[in-house]
Every structure is written in C-alpha cells, then in structure tokens.
C-alpha cells in the first residue's frame, strides 16, 4: 500500500544568514492510510512547523512531501486542489481558529457551498441556489451532531465568543469535516482545552478515524495524551528539528531507547503515588534547551544526555537505525544496551 503521506528529508529554514534557524532538519516519515501517528516533542522542536508543511501552509525549504505518492510541489492544479481539501488542520488555539465575525452556521456552510461535497446534495433533494443552501444547512446540522454539539439548533447561530473552548474546538473539527478530509493534522488540538473536556474530545476525534477513514497526524507535547490517543498507532519523538526515536506506541512507552524519550516519559506525572514512586527518572545533565540559533555539534541532545560519550556523541549526527522490536532510534550508544535504567 502506498503511504497516504510521505515526508522525504524535509527541511525548513526560517530567516537567512546568521539569523537562519533550522526548524525542521531533514526528517522522513511515512504514514499509512488509517494510521494514527503522534508527533511528540518540546515546544520549539519543529513539530508544528512539520504539521503546517504537511497541510501545505508552508513550503518546505528542502525535501519533498508526497501525498498518495505524488509530490505536492509539482502537482497539477486539480490534483493540488484535491490534496488541499483532503488534508485539513485543527489548530491549537480555539480562540484564534474561528472567525469572530461569523456564526457557526456561516463557518460550516461556506465550504460546503463552495465545494458541494455534501452527500445530501447528490440525491437530488436540492436544486438551484435555494435548494443548495438548504442542503448545506442540513449537512451542517449533521456535522455538528457528529462532533457532539447537540442540540444542534443551540449552536448554529452562535458566534465564537459565545462558545467555550471545547465547543469551539468541536466547531473547528466540524468545519474541517465539510470537505471530507482523508488526513487530519491535529496540532495540539486539545492542549488548550479544559482537562475535563480533553478525553471526550479525543474520543470524538478517534471516532472519526473509523467513521470517515481519517488518518491522523496528532501533534502534542504530552506523551500521556499520545499514549492515550495513539495506542494502536505510532509515536515519533522530535528533538530540536530532528526525529530521535519512533516506533509503535506500546514499544515506545514501555521500552524506550533514546534517552530523550526516557526523559519525556519520566516527566509524565502519574496520579497514583505508588506508580509515581516506582517510576524511573533519568537525571539530565542540564535542563537548558539549546538555542536553535546555536545548535550543539553532533547529537543535539548530548549536552543534556546522561549517557554522553565524549568523542562520539559530539562529533557525528547519529542517523535513525532500525531496531528489531519495532521502530528506529537515533542513538548508537543506547541502541544495543538493555533498556532498564540502572
């Protein structure tokens, strides 16, 4: 099966000369249809930049992004438009992602009317401008129901400022669903929502995977969320623009190899004190994240890494190596060693 989306050595620079910052450094990623892939990392590690490049909002500086085997940079106009609609993004900030001057109804019917993709429009129920409007209205109501904004009539004529963060995020999802996307980039989609709402939002997103065959690229800084959402999928850990480890979620959570992944796992708070006591914490040598303007040579994690081997880690950039039990790791030092931390 061809991957629905493929990144090949994608690099993104911002600025030029001395001010040049490499936000994403030669990352490669294959995503199969129906998969859930999580992109995890600290803020500033390039995960959102990657997401925006996948949606086509930012062009990569180097490398290629392929949608269903085709490079999006050299697509025909019609193919590009198809890709554009097939790949949608859910933004992090529910307060900035909806136009404050439009009602929910306007936000959802506009793309429906423009693209005429609504299923109800094809059974001949509506013809002419009026009929199309009615179809769009009906489809909008269906979509709101899908994202659990019920009763629908309470929400259709609301402005964004009359809705809560979670409700806005649901409207964002409904708006993305108007074009029947095949691929959704959820960029920290739940991180600004009240904790109590998160799980139901995640479950709603998860349902879309089955109902609409949506493939997800789920971007988050929170490994606990990644674990919950992508248990059957894969997690890719990014650090300062590079992928340091990736693999099936259960393996990555229980048996992580890269010291950075282990540090992230150690930072996830556990509610159960018994579990918290048993948890292994690896001691980082430094809590400072290096500046993107002045990256350390070799493995960018080496100034913080407890397993630092002088003369090895600070020389060459480690490549991603496959490991037998699934996934790959960019750390030659830790690869062969047993995962238990002594």
């Amino acid at each position, binding site marked *: 099966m061809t991957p629905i989306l493929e990144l090949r050595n994608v690099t993104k620079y911002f600025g030029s000369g001395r001010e040049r910052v490499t936000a994403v450094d030669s990352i490669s990623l294959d995503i199969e249809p129906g998969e859930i892939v999580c992109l995890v990392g600290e803020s500033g590690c390039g995960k959102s930049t990657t997401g*925006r490049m996948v*949606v*086509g*909002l930012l062009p990569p500086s180097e490398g290629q992004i392929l949608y269903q085997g085709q490079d999006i940079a050299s697509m025909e106009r019609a193919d590009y*438009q198809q890709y*554009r*609609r097939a*790949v*949608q*993004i859910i*933004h*992090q*900030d529910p307060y*900035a*992602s*909806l*136009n*404050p*001057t*439009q009602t929910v109804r306007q936000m959802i019917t*506009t*793309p429906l009317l*423009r*693209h005429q993709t609504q299923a109800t429009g094809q059974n001949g129920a509506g013809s002419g401008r009026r009929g199309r409007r*009615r179809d769009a*209205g*009906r489809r*909008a*109501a*269906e979509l709101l*129901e899908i994202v659990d904004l*019920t*009763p*629908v*009539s309470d929400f*259709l*004529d*609301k*402005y964004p*400022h*009359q809705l809560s963060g979670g409700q806005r995020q649901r409207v*964002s999802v409904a*708006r*993305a669903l*108007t*074009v029947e996307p095949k691929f959704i980039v959820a960029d920290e989609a739940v991180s600004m929502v009240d904790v109590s709402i998160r799980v139901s939002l995640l479950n709603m997103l998860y349902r879309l995977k089955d109902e609409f065959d949506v493939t997800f690229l789920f971007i988050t800084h929170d490994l606990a969320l990644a674990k919950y959402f992508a248990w059957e999928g894969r997690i890719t850990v990014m650090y300062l623009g590079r992928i340091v480890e990736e693999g099936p979620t259960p393996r990555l959570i229980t048996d992580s190899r890269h010291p950075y992944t282990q540090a992230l796992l150690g930072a996830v708070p556990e509610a159960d004190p018994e579990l918290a006591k048993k948890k292994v914490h690896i001691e980082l040598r430094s809590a400072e994240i290096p500046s993107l303007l002045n990256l350390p040579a070799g493995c960018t994690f080496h100034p913080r890494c407890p397993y630092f081997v002088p003369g090895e880690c600070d020389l060459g950039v480690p490549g991603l190596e496959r490991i037998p039990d699934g996934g790959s790791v960019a750390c030659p030092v830790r690869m062969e060693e047993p995962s238990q931390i002594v």
Partner: protein
Amino acid sequence: MTAQVADGQQTDSIFVSAWKGFRTGVRLLAYNRVGFIGFLVVVFMVLLSYAGPLIIELDTKTKIDRIYITPTLEHPLGTDHQGRDIWSQIVNGGKDVIYVAFLAALISTVIAVVFGTLSGFIGGWLDSAIMSVTDIILTIPQFPLLAVLAAFISLNSLTLLGILMGLLNWPTLLRALRAQALSLKQRDFIEAARALDLGVMHIVLREMVPNMMPYIVVSFALGMTFAVYQQAGLVFLGLVPITAGNWSVMIQLAWVRGAIFYKDSVWYIMAPIVAIAILQLAIISMTRSLELVFNPRLRASE
C-alpha cells in the same frame, strides 16, 4: 429531527432578520452616549440638508433695505450683504458639502480596502507594486497638487471634485489596512480558510474585511471630515469655481465681501463655519459608537 429544527429556524425571513439587526445596531449605537449624540446630530444635519430645502426655499432676492440684519424671528441667523436670509442659505448649502465629502471618502475607502488587503494578504510583487504607488502618492503634497490640477481642469462639477479628492486621499488608510491584513493573515482562522481552499476573494472579503470593519468605518468617517475641510479650503482659496451656494462658498463669499469687519456681519461668516464645525464634531463623535456597532463581539443578538 434536529436537522428539521435547524431548518425551521432558517425560515426567519429577511425582514425579520433585518429588523433584528437594526434593533441590535440601535442598541449598540446607544451604548456610548457621546457617540449616540453624534449619530443623532449627523442624522439631523443630513435631514436638514436634504429634506430642509423642500420646505425652506433659498432666498435669492436682493433687499437693499435689509443688509446685515442681526437675527430676528423672520431671519433666525440674520441676513447677508445683499439682504438675503442666511438661515435659508445654511439649509440649502449643506447638501453639496456632504455629497462631495461622502463621495470622496467612499472612493478612497474602497480603494484602500481592496488594494490594502490584497497587498497584505498576497504579498510578493503585488505588494511591492501597490506600496510603491502608495508611497509616491503619499509624498505628493495634495493641496498644491489639487491647486495645480484646478488650473488645468475646470473643477466646476461637484462629482468631479469628489472623485478627484477620493483618488488622492486613500494612501494613509491603505497603509494602515495593509498592516492589519498582515497581522490577520497569520491568524489561525485565515490558515484554516486557506486549507479549506476557499479562494482569495472569499478570504479577503469574508474573512479579513469583516474583522477590519470597525477600523474601516471609523476611517471612512474621518475621511469624510478630512474631505469637508479639503473642499472648504479649495473653495476658500478660489481654486474651485463653484458658484452654487454651499457652506464653503458662503465662507469664501463672506470673506471676500469683508464680512469680518462689521459687528453685525459676523453672523454671515460664522453661520457656515459653525455649521461645518458641528457636522465635523458630530461625525467624529459618532465614530465612537460605530466602533461598537461593527465589533463582532458585541453584535450577538441577545
């Protein structure tokens, strides 16, 4: 089931929703007291200038025995150097001033909105081209330019004057709107609209412009006040050979006839000046309320 409920709500007729919008608009206008008074005065001035002439006829008869009469019941604002009623001239002289100012502000606002937002949103060579033209126009001193133009074109038509002023007054507003478009462009909902492939025209007109409306409306009002002064200045300097009576022409005529030299003639020169000042003050006060009316956060029905 729920879909039907939604359909039922949609059958709100255009009249009902228009009435609802009007009611909300008035409620928001009244929210700021100064702004609301300004709004009422503007409405009054417009009514006076457009409906007033139907009732109060312009007094054109020269009456030698009534030169420079101070206000009486018959002549509420006294008479001019030919014994004509000043009040009737004020009532009849507002129409042209408002018309020219409105036309000029409308043209310059439309130019600034369309090109400012396109420039900011699309960027690249289009942005450079638009900004170069803007900067060139911005550096030309407008008043001398209009003075020179007036020497070549006979500016005897009000519409022509309004269009000319409109074609020169847009650069400052365009620059401001471009800056707003640049900041809006970064917002997530514009990105979402781009991802949904809604098209440039939709994004500019439906997503960006509504978010700039408070600013645009206020700029339009300020553009009107600027155009009022501009035309008054041009007429006062005698560069625009408009003979039909309006407030600016009245000031110029009063000045030329030496109305500032006599105690009793002060009414003649002050009446149009005060009329213009009241109109300007009212428009500027009104902007306070306009900001509220076009702020989407306050627009929600209840």
